[in-house]
């Protein structure tokens, strides 16, 4: 009974992610492969973190016509792949990494910071005056912007020093939503059929500060060169600054987007299954999901509700997963707690060979 409720929640979350996808792609265009600068440009700067594309859009509107540069942080990295956001000359690049590093990264950022929907950690004295919240985020004594008017953030950007110099350009490639991946579906299918691509790993989910999360870095580094790495969520910052090379004319690391772009990942899997005339669970695809909080639990329930099996879950399991519950997940859905990157890669490849 409870299980049925949980799966219903997973189905509901699928609908919600579908609506969000329609809203984001409908408003800002279909994500396209994009090189994103990850080094600063000299000048006044605003940092926007969290998930909310509308908040970012409002901030870009507020700085229109000025020299202020806007940087994304964490889960807003995928914003650069939406054509209507990328068109803004003020959108300069991505700064920093995932949410759990915010206290260090925000302290070192030379301008105001806007935290949209995401985990806010206690703002440190070093940046407490210059951090603003929007949407569902809030903290006592931190200014909240409820009306989409970012004038005071612009004022703060002008009063703060900004970046003193432009560092040598470094970029990373993002923007492999379902349309981009399926747009080259022929290449992908050929690569699998010819044997140049042996397997797909979807390594994604939420990142956190706990030890043990190096597993995902190790996994991405140790995966054989004839495998493709798909990623989404903020877990990607464990390995997305590395060069993973190319395969069959495609980059080996394909960044699908935010955690809620799990919708896009599911569409990719369904389309590939159709092309290969098999079920999603029969594809040479392994899901390696990192868990941190409720959002990831909802996405996991969506995957289970869709009948996706053999998800590797880590780095540690949620405390609410009692041994009995875990047994149900293992038996009914083939959930596997992670072991080591090496062993799990080998086991995944054996499954696809079998």
């Amino acid at each position: 009974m409870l299980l049925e409720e949980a799966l219903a929640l997973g189905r509901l979350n699928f609908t919600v992610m579908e609506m969000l996808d329609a809203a984001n792609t409908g408003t800002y265009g279909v994500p396209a492969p994009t090189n994103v600068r990850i080094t600063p440009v000299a000048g006044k700067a605003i940092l926007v973190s969290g998930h909310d594309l509308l908040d970012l859009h409002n901030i870009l509107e507020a700085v229109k016509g000025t020299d202020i540069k806007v940087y994304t942080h964490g889960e807003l990295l995928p914003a650069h792949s939406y054509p209507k956001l990328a068109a803004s000359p003020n959108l300069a690049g991505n700064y920093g990494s995932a949410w759990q590093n915010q206290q260090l990264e925000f302290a070192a950022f030379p301008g105001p910071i806007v935290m949209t929907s995401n985990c806010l950690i206690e703002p440190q004295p070093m940046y407490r005056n210059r951090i603003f919240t929007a949407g569902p985020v809030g903290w006592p004594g931190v200014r909240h912007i409820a009306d989409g008017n970012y004038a005071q953030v612009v004022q703060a950007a002008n009063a703060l020093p900004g970046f003193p110099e432009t560092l040598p350009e470094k970029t990373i490639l993002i923007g492999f939503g379902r349309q981009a991946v399926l747009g080259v579906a022929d290449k992908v299918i050929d690569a699998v059929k010819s044997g140049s691509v042996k397997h797909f790993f979807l390594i994604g989910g939420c990142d956190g500060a706990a030890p043990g999360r190096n597993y995902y870095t190790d996994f991405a580094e140790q995966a054989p060169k004839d495998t493709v790495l798909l990623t989404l969520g903020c877990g990607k910052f464990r390995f997305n600054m590395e060069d993973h090379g190319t395969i069959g004319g495609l980059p080996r690391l394909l960044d699908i987007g935010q955690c809620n772009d799990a919708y896009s990942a599911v569409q990719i899997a369904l389309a590939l299954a159709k092309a290969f005339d098999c079920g999603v669970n029969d594809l040479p695809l392994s899901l390696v999901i990192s868990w941190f909080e409720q959002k990831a639990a909802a996405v996991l329930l969506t995957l289970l509700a869709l009948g996706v099996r053999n998800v590797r879950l880590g780095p540690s399991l949620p405390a609410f997963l009692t041994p009995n519950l875990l047994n149900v997940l293992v038996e009914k859905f083939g959930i596997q707690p992670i072991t080591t990157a090496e062993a799990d890669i080998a086991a995944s490849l054996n499954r696809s060979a079998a």
Partner: protein
Amino acid sequence: MEITLVTRDGEQLQFPCAETDHVLGAAEAAGFFLPAMCHEGTCGQCRAHVSSGDYKMGQHDPAMLPAADPAAVLLCRCTPQQDMTVDLPYDRAQVLRYRVPVRQAVIESLEPAWQGAMALTLRLQPDPETGAAAEFSPGQYMELTLPVTDVRRAYSLANLPNWEGRLDFLIRLKPGGTFSTWLGEQAEVGDILTVRGPLGSFVLDEVSVRPRCFVGGGCGLAPILSMLRHLGDFQDSQPTHLVFGANREAEMLPAAEIDALRAALPQLGTTLAVSQPENGWQGFHGTAPAALEAYLEQAGEAMDIYACGPPKMLEVLEELVQKRGRGDRLIAEQL
């Protein structure tokens, strides 16, 4: 030697320190900037308690160490003789990761606030490294250095953090005092001072849901004014009371100031206490601690009491809190 600092909230900071180096300097070399001011063993800002390990104390003012704690040290004068563990009297959040900024500020105005006190307003000069903004937490202070001298004094900010670089201070004129004499006789609008800050851990615990009571006298009001203005700015709704003490009516906070606070913070209650009033004083007759005692007698639940004043006043307040036995929390800054 290996040094382990333990903050009030239980976080551990570890770094090496040579036998010939001071713990404070070694902490800074490791990227931990602890509250400190004079670096000469005289101001008492870097006081801490050694829980294990031998050490030596260099030249310092013994009055800055409490007689009741033989293991108290000033970290700016403390050199390790063994691995040491040191308890810090503040939370991890008060340990900065970067050196406190040093900037130039120009005197914008200088006016009498009330009898024996000046209101000083400085404007930070924009520079490429730090920008133009005045960033601090209400309750914090800045260290001011007089032009072409090493004379440094710490004064609390009375205004709110702002993007225009404005710093407001209330400064008591101490007869014969170096800074007071300069301020009273030489300082002019347009003079440039060096300011270092923000500093200090006397800040609001905004996560607490307790009613708040603020106690201050004279220029001890400055950080409290900043906190009250902040609560008003954020439309805080918790019960809030201000006890302000003065010796004479002429030293009392101007009525217009109180009206302005109440306009932003409608629930603000006030007890204005004068210890040596003239005939006809309508407010409380007595000291700030006596006024607080009278207020606490009719107050119910446990409160957060924020106080800024001389050491003696703070001792009396501590006794009051103990006597009441309601679990009140005293958050204090020594003037």
